[in-house]
């Protein structure tokens, strides 16, 4: 299995940056997420995580560094958290960090909601 890397960009749509590392299990999803075909974009991310958590099974540290995402993307982010939660429930070692602008109270609420929905602990890290 290989690393998954997608360069973020900001044009007509906003493509988030993706950096999932097989060697150390550190995954980063950052930038802004507003896409033409949201589910189609996130599908390879789900597949990578499912493969990693079922075959490699080493600890995962997932770092969210998103500054903006639309509601379609928000649904896909929940799906990522649910995959990580499944891994944790099956004995996997999962750590989730969410970096956010300390003045962005909307983002703080958003992460709290994700914690309730996914039942996964997320470390809120103000920057």
């Amino acid at each position, binding site marked *: 299995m290989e690393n998954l890397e997608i360069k973020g960009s900001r*044009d*007509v*749509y906003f493509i988030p940056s993706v950096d999932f590392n097989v060697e150390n299990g550190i995954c980063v999803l950052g930038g802004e997420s*507003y896409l*033409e*075909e*949201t*589910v189609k974009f996130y599908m390879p991310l789900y597949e990578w995580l499912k493969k990693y958590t079922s075959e490699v099974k080493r600890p995962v540290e997932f770092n969210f560094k998103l500054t*903006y995402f*639309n*509601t*379609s993307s*928000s*649904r896909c982010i*929940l799906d990522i958290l649910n995959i990580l939660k499944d891994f944790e429930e099956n004995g996997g070692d999962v750590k989730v960090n969410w970096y956010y602008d300390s*003045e*962005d109270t*909307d983002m703080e*609420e958003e992460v709290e*909601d994700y914690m*309730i*929905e996914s039942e996964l602990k997320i470390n809120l890290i103000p920057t």
Partner: protein
Amino acid sequence: MSEEKFSLYNYHKTFDKDILISFKGPFDKHILSIIGNYIEVILGRNPKAGKKIFKIFIELAQNIAYYSAEGITNVNSDAGIGTLVIGEFDNHYSFVAGNVVKASDIVHIIEKSEIINSLDREGLRQYKREQRNMPQGEKGSAHIGLIQVALTAASPLDIEVTPINEEYSFFTISVNVEK
């Protein structure tokens, strides 16, 4: 357009000087991108409100793009036609968006808006979580656009429905964002 000659002056004077942006036309991805960029530039002096306006803009503009009953089919299938006006006042920004909807769809939209306006912030967050857990809607919609607009604006949604004929109505949503 009716046979009466279109007066651009009448259209122009409809808006007062507090208007930042007004647009009527197809909400295609390029227009969304241009208006989105413009919002970020002009509201850069107030980043917090600017970010909120941008977030609200994307949700409401995508609603129009996907769900307007008027569209330009030969240009882009996801380019529903609608109207958008953003105004700036002393203490707040106002956001008004509207489009034609099928009369049969309007009941659902009104019901949803009434639920949203009946809930406090905690209730809204819970409603959003419930809706986000529902199966994915058409075109990747997460059913939570309007809920997110109310949360982002931190103010109620003002909904108005103007019947056009038996088949169609014009749906207007207004929301204010404090500066």
